[in-house]
């Protein structure tokens, strides 16, 4: 029924054929020249390996330390999912990751390749014990970027070892493996990591601003912190981001106080438009607090916002909010 669609289809099929032909040419060329002699661009244009011969050729490239790190990394990527079927390849890749003599950029690529393979969980997970064993070793790797990446992988798995090391680093800065704000962020993946009391202390005595912001972001889901969050929200001298995260926590755990604060904030000409916008967005989305229930004064005020008087975002938020009124 769609004439134009047929035209598009024909054009696309032509593109497809050209691409397939191009790939075949690359493969032929690689065969003729030998894999080790092709350029990076030619290597990139090769399809993923499908035969054992191709896989072995690529692995030879990976092992060839005379090649540049990105070339070797690309060769590894081109092996595709071979490591899921051949445990020897996995073992080899793990050794590359552990080898501190290798270029750290190459090791980062190797780690990314392993993470990508981990997406095919059902088959990759048979290697998980070996993988985790090595990752925990790398928590102490001298390369900070690799170390950070490894810790992120472990933190997402709620790993006990990395949680312990992160908490130790927060308590004893000399033992820190990552910045305090990064440690807080990583600990935030697991609410059961017993970090909340420590974070409350950090909010009171932060090592730096970022750490404070991050701590408040994590505490925004902790009902035991609602008193602290309310205090931070009301404090106009606090960082904007701190107040924004606090607002979300107060809304969740102390809605009455939040409504009271919202009513005062909207009237307050000295309050940030950013925060007012967040208030309107959050109230508009909150099914427990219908917009009409905010009272005539509040709603009249919101409806009276003028474009020239308030920021564009606040105007936008107020329009959405108004649409939620009956």
């Amino acid at each position, binding site marked *: 029924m769609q004439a134009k669609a047929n035209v598009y289809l024909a054009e696309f099929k032509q593109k497809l054929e050209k691409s397939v032909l191009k790939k075949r040419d690359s493969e032929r060329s690689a065969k003729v020249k030998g894999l080790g002699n092709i350029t990076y661009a030619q290597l990139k244009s090769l399809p993923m390996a499908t035969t054992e011969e191709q896989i072995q050729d690529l692995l030879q490239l990976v092992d060839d330390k005379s090649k540049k790190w990105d070339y070797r990394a690309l060769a590894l990527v081109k092996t595709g999912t071979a490591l899921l*079927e051949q*445990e020897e390849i996995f073992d080899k890749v793990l050794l590359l990751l552990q080898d501190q003599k290798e270029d750290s950029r190459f090791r980062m690529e190797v780690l990314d390749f392993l993470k990508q393979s981990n997406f095919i*969980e*059902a*088959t990759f*997970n*048979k*290697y*998980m*014990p*070996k993988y*985790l*064993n*090595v990752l*925990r*070793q790398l*928590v102490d790797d001298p390369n900070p970027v690799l170390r950070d990446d490894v810790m992120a992988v472990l933190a997402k798995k*709620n*790993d*006990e*070892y990395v*949680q*312990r090391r992160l908490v130790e680093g927060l308590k004893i800065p000399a033992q820190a493996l990552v910045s305090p704000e990064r440690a807080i962020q990583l600990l935030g993946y*697991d*609410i*059961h*990591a*017993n*970090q*909340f*009391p420590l974070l409350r202390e950090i909010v009171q005595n932060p090592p730096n601003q970022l750490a404070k912001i991050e701590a408040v972001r994590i505490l925004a*889901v*902790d*009902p*035991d912190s609602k008193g602290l969050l309310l205090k931070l929200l009301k404090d106009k001298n606090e960082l904007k981001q701190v107040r924004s995260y606090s607002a979300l926590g107060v809304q*969740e*755990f102390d809605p009455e106080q939040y409504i009271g604060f919202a009513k005062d904030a909207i009237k307050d000409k000295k309050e940030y438009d950013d925060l007012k916008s967040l208030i309107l967005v959050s109230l508009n989305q909150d*099914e*427990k607090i219908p917009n009409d229930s905010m009272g005539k004064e509040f709603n009249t005020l919101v409806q009276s916002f003028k474009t020239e008087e308030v920021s564009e975002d606040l105007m936008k938020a107020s329009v959405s909010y108004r649409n939620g009124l009956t």
Partner: protein
Amino acid sequence: MKISRNSTASAQLNNISAHDTELYIANLIDAVKGDQKDQKFLLDLLKENNPAYQERSSNVVMRLRGYALAAMYYTGLPPGSLPFICAILETERTAYLVAAAARALRGAAPIKKVIPLFLKSIDNIRLHDDAITFTEYQPHWPLLENTTALNELLLTIQYYGNAAYELRDGLLFLTNNRSSDFNKEILKQLNATIDAVSVPGKTKQDCCDHYEDDIDFKPALFFNRKKELSKVIVQDQDSNDQPLTELLKDKLTVLTFFYTRCDNPLKCSMNISRLATLAHDLVNSPMNKSVNVIGITYDSPYDSPNQLIVYGANRGMQFSDTVKLLRVKEGYEDLKTLLHLGVSYIGSVVNIHRNELYILDAEGDVLHAFTHERWDVAQVKTKLEEYANRRTNEKKAHRLLLRPVKNLSKTFYSVVMPLLVALFPKCPLCWAAYLSSFGLSGLSFIPYSPWLYPMIVAIVAFNFYVIFKRAYRRKYYLPCILSGGGMLLIMLLGGLLKIHFALYIGIVFVLAGSLLNSYPVRISANALTKKSLRLSWK
């Protein structure tokens, strides 16, 4: 750390607290390895509500429990540990804990009950395995030698040998159909396991072929429960508040605990899904409306009504007057103590909990508890039917019993009651008379003792004194005469001459005297003569 066999060491083991460091506790565990005397300490470490687990992260609690379990490989399994091990095999996905549980089982002879759980555990842990060691609590990485949860499970099945023959087909399925899910080492171990269970021969003897109840669960006494339960105020998913006792009234209740922030889908999420299925099944049964199906959150500060409604709805719960998810607004500590809930916290965040489901009667008494053991809908329904039938039978029996009682009660109310009212002691002297006469009659049946006779004399004398005093006031001496006559019969004929018949007659006279002593009577001043034995009503 050396633990010597003395009271200080025992005190250490019995008094670990939330303030003790992980390493301290781990060292205690190391010290008791190989000594069966301290099994109780290890068992206590398995309990989710162990006070030492307050304010620790979930991972730390998991490791301590795992380390304690692994130590049972050396000490043997303490009585009461089996429910914990079964629960871990059924629901846990942390490799460390599963490996420890599997290893612990090799500390005892094969146990039939756990065998079906091995395949389940393999399935649970297959995608979550890890490199593990139990040689030290906080190892250095990388481990040069390690085990894994799968490895431990397979080693334990090998240990069970032919006793685990029923697992053979399941294991074969794994090697034939799921071999790509396992690495080389585990495949090798799988094949060895299949060989081990296939060896023909005598089945190994069972040691503990019974399921142990949760030994730390002790229902509170009835009168305590009601008082404590009445303090518990709950809020449901629709934000309605009410006392828990009101909700329980006149119904059986199925009660489970959960929290929405639980990250083990084999626990809370699964429990609420099953609870929803149970509720759904009950709707079409005769028990509809007579059974509450309730989930209470461990995490009341976080689990608002909105959280509850979404969590429940996402798992198929259809809320009604009898199907609810609740949070506790007041009295949670009372509820927690009453039911000995298996939960610990860091602040308000749950760090560990067990699976627990209770069937309560209308008073809040626990009729049945599924703690640790997996419950399924059919099991709970069977229990509910059993208790519902029992209740019906009790009501029937009650009614049958009541018929003659009802008739009796008519007589009671029309004749006896007025008499009792009349004879009810209305003054202290009357009370004294009653008590002394009852005391006397009671004493008379006590076997001989040197102090008995003087006691009897003293009570009789007291009784006579009390009655005489009132008689003098009222100028009505019949009770006094009766009591005095009884006294003489008891002391002289019954006590000294041992004529039992006289003793009983004497007691009757004393009792009669006491009764009459309480009887309201007005004696006119003009009738105060020796002959005035007539009674006249006011």
